[in-house]
C-alpha cells in the first residue's frame, strides 16, 4: 500500500525520533547521575576538610555529633579499615518521623596522636529531586522538540515539494492528442526537481515530435501516392482508347482500372482521415442537419435502384456548430454504410433529433467484434468497393467534435447512434 510522501515521512519520524529521544534521555540521566554523585563526593570531602580544620583549630572543643552534618568518633585502634568510597545510609528524624537518605563519607585522621574517624553527611534528597526535576524538564523539552521537528518537517515538505506536485498536476493534464503543451519551469530552486522537469519536458517533446511525425507521415505518404496514381489513371485512359483492343486486353484493363480506382479511393480516404486528425478543418459554421440528410437521401435513392425501404423522422432546426464538409462526410458515410451493408428487401430507419442522429438498418450479422467496427480497415462483409475506412472516418469526426458514437445490434438490425451532446 502506497501512502503519501508526507505521511510516510511523518510516520518515519514519529517511529524513530522517540527511539532516539529515549536513548538520549537515558544517556542524559546517566550523565546527570554521575555528575550528581561526583558533586556529592566533592561536598563530602569539603565538609571533611572544614570539620577537621575547625576541630584542630578549636583543639577538639566543638560539637562531636551533628545529625545529618558530621560526627567525629575517637578510635582506639589506628588500624581499622575505612572505605574511601562514599556510602548510602538513612538517618531517622524523630520530629519528622521518617528516615531521610544520606550520603556519608568516613575518613580516619590522626590529631595529636589520637585517632579519629570523621564521617560527613550530605542529604541525597535534594540531588535526587533535582535530577527528577531536570529529567522531567528535559523530557518535556524533548517531546516539544519532537513535535516541532515533525511539524516543521511537514510544513517544509509541503513547501519544498510544491514544484513536484505542480509538475505532477501538469503531467496529468498532458494528452498527446488534445493537449500537447506542458510548461514545466526550468528553475524550481531545487536541483532534483529541475532535473525532473527537464527530463519530463524532454520526454514530452520527443513524444510530441514522434506523434507529429507519425501523423504527418500518413498525410505526406498519401499525398505523394496521389501523383503516381494520377499517372496510372491517365495512362489507363490512353490505353483503353488504343485501336484494335481485344476483349481479353480490355478485360485486363478493366480489372487494372478497378484496382487503381480502389487504391485511389483508399488513398483519398486515408488522406482525409489524416487531415481530420491533423486539424485541417478548423472552420466551423452553423450547419442545419435535416436539409443535408434529405438531400443526401434523395441523391442516394436516385443512385440505387435497390434502395431499401426507408422510415425517416427528421426534426427540423437541428443545428450543429461544425465544419460543413465534415458533417456531410459523417452523414454520408453513415447512410452509405446502412445501404451497402443491407440485405435485399431490407429497411433503413433514420431518426434525427436535438439529442442525436440515429440510423438503423437490417443486415447480415457482423463477422467482426462490434468494438472493432470503427477501426481502420475493419470490414464486416467483404464488399469489393468498400475501403473499410468509412466508419473510421465517422469515429474520427465524432472524436473531433466530441460526439459520443455507439453501435448496437439485435435481431438482424444494426444501429449506430451519434449523440450531439
Amino acid at each position: 500500500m502506497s501512502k503519501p510522501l508526507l505521511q510516510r515521512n511523518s510516520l518515519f519520524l514519529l517511529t524513530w525520533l522517540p527511539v532516539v529521544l529515549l536513548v538520549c534521555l537515558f544517556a542524559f540521566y546517566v550523565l546527570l547521575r554521575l555528575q550528581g554523585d561526583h558533586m556529592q563526593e566533592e561536598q563530602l570531602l569539603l565538609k571533611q576538610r572544614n570539620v577537621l580544620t575547625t576541630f584542630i583549630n578549636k583543639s577538639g572543643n566543638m560539637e562531636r555529633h551533628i545529625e545529618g552534618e558530621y560526627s567525629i568518633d575517637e578510635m582506639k585502634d589506628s588500624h581499622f579499615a575505612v572505605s574511601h568510597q562514599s556510602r548510602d545510609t538513612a538517618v531517622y528524624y524523630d520530629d519528622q518521623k521518617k528516615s531521610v537518605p544520606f550520603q556519608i563519607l568516613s575518613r580516619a585522621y590522626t590529631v595529636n596522636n589520637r585517632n579519629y574517624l570523621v564521617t560527613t553527611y550530605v542529604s541525597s534528597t535534594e540531588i535526587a529531586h533535582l535530577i527528577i526535576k531536570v529529567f522531567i524538564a528535559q523530557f518535556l523539552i524533548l517531546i516539544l522538540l519532537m513535535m516541532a521537528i515533525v511539524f516543521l518537517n511537514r510544513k517544509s515538505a509541503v513547501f519544498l515539494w510544491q514544484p513536484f506536485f505542480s509538475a505532477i498536476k501538469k503531467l496529468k493534464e498532458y494528452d498527446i492528442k488534445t493537449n500537447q503543451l506542458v510548461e514545466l519551469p526550468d528553475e524550481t530552486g531545487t536541483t532534483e526537481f529541475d532535473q525532473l522537469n527537464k527530463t519530463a519536458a524532454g520526454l514530452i517533446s520527443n513524444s510530441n515530435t514522434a506523434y507529429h511525425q507519425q501523423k504527418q507521415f500518413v498525410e505526406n505518404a498519401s499525398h505523394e501516392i496521389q501523383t503516381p496514381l494520377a499517372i496510372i489513371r491517365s495512362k489507363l485512359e490512353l490505353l483503353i482508347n488504343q485501336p484494335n483492343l481485344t476483349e481479353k486486353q480490355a478485360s485486363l484493363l478493366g480489372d487494372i482500372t478497378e484496382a487503381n480506382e480502389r487504391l485511389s479511393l483508399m488513398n483519398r480516404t486515408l488522406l482525409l482521415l489524416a487531415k481530420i486528425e491533423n486539424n485541417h478543418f478548423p472552420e466551423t459554421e452553423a450547419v442545419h442537419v435535416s436539409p443535408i440528410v434529405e438531400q443526401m437521401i434523395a441523391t442516394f435513392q436516385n443512385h440505387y435502384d435497390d434502395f431499401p425501404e426507408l422510415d425517416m423522422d427528421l426534426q427540423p432546426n437541428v443545428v450543429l456548430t461544425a465544419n460543413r464538409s465534415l458533417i456531410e462526410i459523417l452523414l454520408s458515410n453513415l447512410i452509405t454504410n446502412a445501404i451497402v451493408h443491407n440485405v435485399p428487401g431490407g429497411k433503413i430507419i433514420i431518426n434525427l433529433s436535438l439529442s442525436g442522429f440515429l440510423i438503423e438498418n437490417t443486415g447480415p450479422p457482423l463477422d467482426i467484434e462490434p468494438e472493432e467496427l470503427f477501426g481502420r480497415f475493419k470490414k464486416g462483409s467483404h464488399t469489393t468497393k468498400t475501403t473499410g475506412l468509412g466508419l473510421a472516418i465517422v469515429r474520427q469526426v465524432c472524436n473531433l467534435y466530441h460526439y459520443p458514437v455507439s453501435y448496437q445490434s439485435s435481431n438482424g438490425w444494426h444501429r449506430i447512434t451519434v449523440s450531439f451532446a
Partner: protein
Amino acid sequence: MKLLVIEDETSLLKSIIEYFTQEDFLCETAGTFKEGIEKAEDFQYDCIILDINLPGGSGLKILEYLRQHKKSDGVIIISARDSLDDKIAGLDLGADDYVTKPFHLSELNARVKALIRRKYAQGTSALEMGTLHVNLLSRTVTCNNQHILLTRNEYDLLVFLLNNKERVVGKQAIAEHIYGDQADNMPSFDFVYSQIKNLKKKLKDKGCEDIIQTVYGLGYKLSL
C-alpha cells in the same frame, strides 16, 4: 486550337499532351515556373492548363502575371484535391475553371472544350453528331429534329460523351463527372450502366440508334 500545359510531372504531362493532340489541339508544354511564364508571355493560347505546384514558384503567380498583363487566355488550374484555398485563390485571380488531381483526361477535355466554347464561340453553343443536336444554351436535345426529353443526369452524361466523342470514356470518369466527390461513396458503378441504358433507349426512340457503344465493360464510346 492552341493549348499550353504547364505541369512538372513529365509522365502526366505526356498523357495530357497525347490526349489533346488526338483531339486536334496544338500543344505546347512547360515543366517549370520559368518556362511556363516565358511561354505564357510570348504567345497567345486558347487555353492554359496550369498546375499549381511547380518547381521555381506557384502556378498562381503565372495566373496573376497573365491577368495583370491583360492576357485573356483561358486558364484551367489543376491541383491536388481538397486544397480548397488554392481553388478559391485561383478563381479569385481569374482562373476559368479548376480541376482536382487525380482527374480523368476525359473530364479535363470536357472542361477545356466547355471553356473554349464559353470564351470564344458564343452563339454557336451547340454540339452535333450526325442527326443528334444539343443546344447548350437552352439545354435541349433533338434527334432528327425531334425533341428528346432527358433528365439532368442523362443530359450531363450525353454532353460529356459528346465532348469526348470517338473515345472510350471509363465508367469511373462518367460517375465522377456526374456526381463529383459523391461518386466516392458509391459501392458500384451500376448506376452508370442504368443511366446509359435509359439514355440509349430515349435516343433509339427518336431514331438515333447505336451511337453509344459499350466497350467490353470498360466504358462507353459515342461514335457514328
